[in-house]
Structures are given as structure tokens and as C-alpha cells.
């Protein structure tokens, strides 16, 4: 297809680019992080969906996968890391602990009852821990969400 022309809207083009180059942050808290590592490794290969470039700094990442138990001590750090990420930024809450406190939800004096208490969450992935397929499903759900955003028309007010 030489000198071909493809027609699309600018929104769709930008979203297509953004959703297929999600850079997650290298950030694991507990056993869910082991599954997250498995998801990124060769067998499940998150890279197939344009989401495998785990960044070692929040400044370059635009997706935070909260994988594991968020203790009260860690919660302040999670919030700080989230604030350091550049807009637009997304959060996947992975596993029961990050969703609603998990096994610590009733008696855990030291566990935050869901990471959504401190940062806004886009996609919840249930499971204890979720299988790599479940995390991939979560990432693909987030990609669908990004594909439907209208970055140019709507003022960016999501995290205001």
C-alpha cells in the first residue's frame, strides 16, 4: 500500500496510540506482584497488548497496577507515587486486598480497606491472587476505556 491514505478522527488516532503503549510502573506489594511478574514474563507476555514496558520510575509510567495488600504504612507511599505520575494516568487495583482489604477487611488494624480510599481506581481485578489471564482482562478493559475517551473535546477533569 504505497502512498495510501487512511481516514480517521484525531481522537481515535490519539487513543489508539495511547491505549497500545501503556507503561505500567514496576511496583508490587505482595503475592499479587508475583502474578503480575508472571503476566509480564514470556508465557503470558503482556507485551502482546502493548503494556509490557514496566518502568522503574513513576515519572515515566502512566499505569499503576496496585498489586497486593496496601497497609496503612504503605498507603501514604502509594499516594505519593500516584501523585508523581504524569497525566493522563490510570490505576488498576489488582486482587482482593487492593480492592476491599481482602482477608484483612474485618479485623485488619493495619490494612487500608481498599486502595480507592487514597487513589482513584479505573479497573478492579478480583481474585486472590488473580491469575495472569485475569490481569490481562483488566488491562484490556482499561484499553477499551481509554479508546472511548475524548481527550480533545472534553476538558481533562478526571483527577481534578
Amino acid at each position, binding site marked *: 500500500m504505497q502512498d495510501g491514505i487512511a481516514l480517521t478522527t484525531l481522537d481515535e488516532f490519539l487513543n489508539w496510540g495511547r491505549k497500545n503503549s501503556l507503561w505500567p510502573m514496576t511496583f508490587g506489594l505482595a503475592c499479587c506482584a508475583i502474578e503480575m511478574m508472571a503476566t509480564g514474563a514470556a508465557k503470558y507476555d503482556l507485551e502482546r497488548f502493548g503494556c509490557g514496558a514496566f518502568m522503574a520510575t513513576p515519572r515515566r509510567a502512566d499505569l499503576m497496577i496496585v498489586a497486593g495488600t496496601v497497609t496503612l504504612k504503605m498507603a*501514604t507511599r502509594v499516594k505519593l507515587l500516584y501523585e508523581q505520575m504524569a497525566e493522563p494516568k490510570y490505576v488498576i487495583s489488582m486482587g482482593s486486598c487492593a480492592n476491599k482489604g481482602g482477608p484483612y477487611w474485618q479485623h485488619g488494624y493495619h490494612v487500608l*480497606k481498599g486502595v480507592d480510599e487514597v487513589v482513584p481506581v479505573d479497573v478492579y481485578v478480583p481474585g486472590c491472587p488473580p491469575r495472569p489471564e485475569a490481569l490481562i482482562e483488566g488491562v484490556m478493559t482499561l484499553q477499551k476505556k481509554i479508546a472511548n475517551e475524548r481527550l480533545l473535546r472534553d476538558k481533562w477533569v478526571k483527577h481534578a
Partner: protein
Amino acid sequence: MLNELVSKINSAVSGANASLLTPEDSKLESSILVDAKKIHAVAEFLKKSKIMNALQAISGVDYVEFIEVVYIFGNFDIANPGQLLLKARITDRVNGNIDTISDLFPAADYQERECFDMLGITFNNHPDHRRILCPDDWEGFPLRKDYVAAKNYNGMEVFPEGKMNMADREFIVRQEMIKKAQEAQSGKVQ
């Protein structure tokens, strides 16, 4: 064998008051109870006489009447392998303190910090006496029987009502009852 060791400790360290603790269940391991003030001397004796050459763990138990510090020593010498449970009891819940043995066994450093973090026992002469697991501004010692879970920490709600199963809040109710009882008691003292 433990009886021999008890008499050895008593003759080597004056005032150690070593005695054998035998649990009711014969399958469980017997242990040696020593005076908390002499724990450093006893550990020094165990190390210098080469009866034990390693510290495996330090843990603590709150028995309400007293707090027990449990030292698990090991001897990894092939000629004379063995393990020893050494216990010391602290009755003062507020100012309870015991000497550190981290100068003899460096492994004791973190273990003693954890013991302080969870049960509030002060270890005298410890090189780095801070909390190790809980944040530095944490209130209370979580493994104590009379610990009351905080409702808020740094502006975060620990038990948000919307997320709790409020029909089953025995735990919180019990904590509140303990707190009320404590307040009533402290009111009487004043």
C-alpha cells in the same frame, strides 16, 4: 539434659534463678525460665561455654499477667547439635525492660526491634532502638492483649462504615468495651 543445663546456669550466673518449665503436653518442648535481669549474663555464659552458638529467633507472648520473651538458641556444631528455649518474664507492662543481647548475638538486633514494635518491651543498650514493622508514628503495641485498634491513621479511616459488615462488628465492639474499661480504670486512679 535440660536439668543439667539448669544447674550449670545457676552455678555460673548468680541470681539467674533458672528453672525448668515443662508443658502439660509431653509432646511439647521443655524450656528454661531465667530471671529477666540476668538474661545478658545467661546469654554470655551460653556463648562463652559453647553450649549454644547461634540465636535463631526472639519472640514474645502476652499472658496478661506477664509478658514473656522467648529466646530460641541453637547449636550448629556437628559434634554437639541442639536447641534451647530460654524464657524471661516481665511483669511491668508500662516500663517493662530487659537487657539487649545484640552485642553477643548480632541476630538479636532486628528480632528485639520487632519484639519492641509488637509488644512494647524496651531493650536496654540496644544500638538502634526503633520500630521495625509499624510506622514510627504508630500508637500502641499490636500484639498486646489490651491493644485497641485505631479508628483513624494519618487521616485514613481504618474501618470505613460503608465497607464493613456492620452486622458482625463483635471485634470493634469488644475493642470499644476494652477502651471504656480502661478509661474507667484510669479515672479511678486519678
